[in-house]
């Protein structure tokens, strides 16, 4: 008997078989990892989409407002946000789709990255680097707390945005995976973790602005944070980050380590019997995912100009999960498509029929899980396959 817990009655023989079909099988042979991350066609598609996305802020900057191809400011900032969401979804998919670890607490890593970078932005918005941020003055604090030290230096804040979520994930993951907590139990305790963190950050005494969080950013690296040029710059940085992380994720999943992870996802006990210790594999991908999510949060906060503890609410984390599920987990492009689709829907719904958005989102959850377990990408693949069969 292993110590691991299976959630349903463990003796249900159908269960493990069904679990395996939840994820798309990894196509292509292992040797493919050495010839390149993507096929030439895939590279072409990715680069085309990236080029089109990269062009949009340029159109916003260069063209006059009256021009037919002019892209409004609103669209640029909205798409900039979506890029961050896509990055967070990619991070979540890396653990859920490839290691079978469903995290309901990725919003915490997202928010931690945001808070870490927000600290720098708060310091950059005060008249002098040593001046207290506004909320500390409001709380009549006399000096900057120790955990705020060095945050006036942007590179340190960037490092912190990666290290803080990464470290938390590492410690939490080490204990959780060592105790072989899997499945629903893991999901629930990640949810508890982010809930506890939210309560903690809501307190003024914690030192992160309490209820209001951070806002009122003015400059970043000396540039005006609200100017169109800075926005475009941030957008391009987000796009680069997303592309970079996509390549990194692809490299991880295509490597031998990635294959082991997928095997652990499908049959953890069997892998253990074969002599693999899953702890290190899972911990690695879990920490990487948290750091990616932190990066996404840092970019997000810079673009939207506010971070507060409600980012850590369990609702936000679970919404991230639906982006991944809608796009198709276990595929790296899926979550990016999913995050874009769901958020575009959300933007449209909340302006057109605000009271129906939750119905739509709820229905999306139900329909995707019941009817489309492999998401949009899975559906597309199936349709493509059918077409090829018909042709053959």
């Amino acid at each position, binding site marked *: 008997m292993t110590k691991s817990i299976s959630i349903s009655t463990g*003796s249900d023989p159908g269960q493990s078989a*069904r679990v395996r079909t939840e994820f798309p099988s990894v196509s292509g042979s292992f040797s493919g990892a050495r010839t390149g991350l993507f096929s030439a066609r895939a590279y072409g598609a990715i680069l085309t989409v990236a080029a089109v996305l990269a062009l949009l802020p340029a159109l916003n900057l260069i063209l006059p407002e009256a021009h037919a191809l002019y892209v409004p400011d609103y669209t640029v900032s909205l798409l900039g946000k979506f890029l961050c969401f896509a990055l967070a979804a990619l991070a979540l998919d890396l653990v859920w789709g490839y290691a079978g670890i469903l995290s309901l607490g990725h919003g915490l890593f997202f928010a931690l990255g945001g808070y870490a970078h927000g600290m720098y932005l708060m310091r950059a918005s005060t008249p002098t680097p040593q001046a207290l941020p506004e909320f500390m003055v409001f709380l009549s604090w006399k000096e900057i707390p120790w955990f705020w030290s060095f945050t006036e230096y942007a590179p340190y804040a960037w490092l912190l945005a990666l290290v803080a979520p990464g470290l938390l994930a590492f410690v939490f993951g080490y*204990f959780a995976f060592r*105790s072989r*907590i899997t499945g*629903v139990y893991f999901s629930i305790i990640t949810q508890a973790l982010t809930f506890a963190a939210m309560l903690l950050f809501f307190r003024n005494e914690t030192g992160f602005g309490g209820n209001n969080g951070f806002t009122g950013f003015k400059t970043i690296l000396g540039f005006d944070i609200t100017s169109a040029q800075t926005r475009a710059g941030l957008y391009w940085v987000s796009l680069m980050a997303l592309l970079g992380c996509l390549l990194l994720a692809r490299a991880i999943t295509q490597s031998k380590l990635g294959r082991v992870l997928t095997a652990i996802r499908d049959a953890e006990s069997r892998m253990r019997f074969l002599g693999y210790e899953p702890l290190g594999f899972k911990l690695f991908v879990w920490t990487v995912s948290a750091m990616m999510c932190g990066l996404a949060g840092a970019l997000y906060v810079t673009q939207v100009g506010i971070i507060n503890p409600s980012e850590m609410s369990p609702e936000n984390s679970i919404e991230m999960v639906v982006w991944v599920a809608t796009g198709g987990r276990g595929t790296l492009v899926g979550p990016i498509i999913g995050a874009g689709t769901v958020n575009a829907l959300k933007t449209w719904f909340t302006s057109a029929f605000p009271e129906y958005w939750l119905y739509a989102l709820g229905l999306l*959850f139900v329909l995707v*899980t*019941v009817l489309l377990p492999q998401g949009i990408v899975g559906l597309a693949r199936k349709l493509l396959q059918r077409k090829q069969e018909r042709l053959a």
Partner: protein
Amino acid sequence: MQNLARGWLTILFLISGLFSGALSAQAPEAVPGDQDWPVKVSRLATDLASSDTTTRLGAIEALGLSREVRALEVLQALAQSTLYVSASGDMVIETEPDQFLDVTTGQPVTSTSAPGSELRKVRMNNRLRSAVQSALASSELLGGSAARRLAAALGLQGEADPARLPILQQALESETRAEIRDAIEIAIASASLRSDDLATRLMAIEKLGESGSGQFISVLTDLLASDAQGNPVESVEVREAAQDALDRIRSWQQLQSWVGNLFYGVSLGSVLLLAALGLAITFGLMGVINMAHGELLMIGAYSTYLVQSVFKLWFPQAMDWYVLAALPVAFVIAGSVGMVLERTVIRWLYGRPLETLLATWGVSLILMQGVRTLFGAQNVEVSNPSWMSGGVQVMGSLVLSYNRIAIVVFAFLVVMLVWVILQHTRLGLFVRAITQNRTMAGCVGVPTGRIDMLAFGLGSGIAGLAGVALSQLGNVGPDLGRAYIVDSFMVVVLGGVGQLAGTVVAAIGLGTLNKFIEPFTGAVIAKIAILMFIILFVQKRPQGLFAPKGRSA
């Protein structure tokens, strides 16, 4: 379905037992009267009408010592400046503008027929006002209802005025109720603390120590004080007695706060238990993570609101009992929603627990928004029935509120109900069989699909019952369920899957732990500490407190 009907009857039976005790009304108490009252009234009226403050003070004092019940009314009228007197000996109380009550007879008189034209308000000054307050206390002590006598005695405890000793002694002689006697004795002790007689003082100090009341700490600490030269003011005996008394009070208060924490912890635990019990059934049975569980609680609470509205419209005289009627309604509504949910969504997802989690989260969003569409986004008002407001006072100053007590009792009854259903009905037998081994149970003829539906309905119905209870404790709004969902999962995870006893122990334990941490750290940190504790605990014992033994795990 037969089994469900049996469950129904059991609920109704148990609940009717719960509230039968509350029905016995208290018999009205006889009020002491005074035969010479009419004679005294005219005398008092003349005195109060006089311009001499001392005369008026005497009248007020006499009123305070009178055993006549109307003397109390007169004093209250004085305090509220609604008493009118004439020099000729008439005294009336203004009840409403131009509506008077004759003090002698207690009959209403109109202003036109009010005898004497020279009626005027009794003029008050500060001295008179404080005299009225004291007299009110004395009067209530002698002539009020039991509750007022007790309140008056408790009030006099704090005053510590030696001038009150005669009244207190007199009240003590005539008092029959033990708790009021005790309160009066403490008041006497407090008043005689500065007495000249050493023995009286020592006895008074001891009595104050016995009272265990925190209000005497400062008086007793004063006895230990030293003067400017550093010499103790009081004699050794007095100081020793005072120190003993202080120690007794402190340890009593310690005990009191422990009992208070325990009670509030258990009541919080009962809330958690009610919220988590339905979840324990569905989670234990089917491994289904029902994220919509919180919304089933909310549906229960809204059912209470509906029943309340129905009662307001058609049975306003039975408003006090609407909560009882809400129980079956909430059970049926929440149970039906649960069964529909099981048939339409969850049955497609068995064996894929992570997927059920997502799908039920979607359902919870739909339910929440549905309630917003139907009832509006604002909280709705659900009132407490009158028998649930107030509380019982124990150990001196500790108040246990009736609604908390009702929750504890209710949680116990619901647990009993679930236990009975699981252990002593055919449905329960099947449920336990499926929990142990679904395939095998199916092989020997248990209709697993139908049992899944019924059990899910049962778990949801119990969430509905919990919703009724929650509606009595806090706000009822569309977000009600969200507040409980994380906590409910914590309870189930801590207790272990499929274990009723585990759920009970985990819920009560978490509630109590929370209340004991709270005084040191504040509510938020206590909550965070609990969450961290559970996260750590699950690392050590992933199978929960009470893991099922054997291969079925």
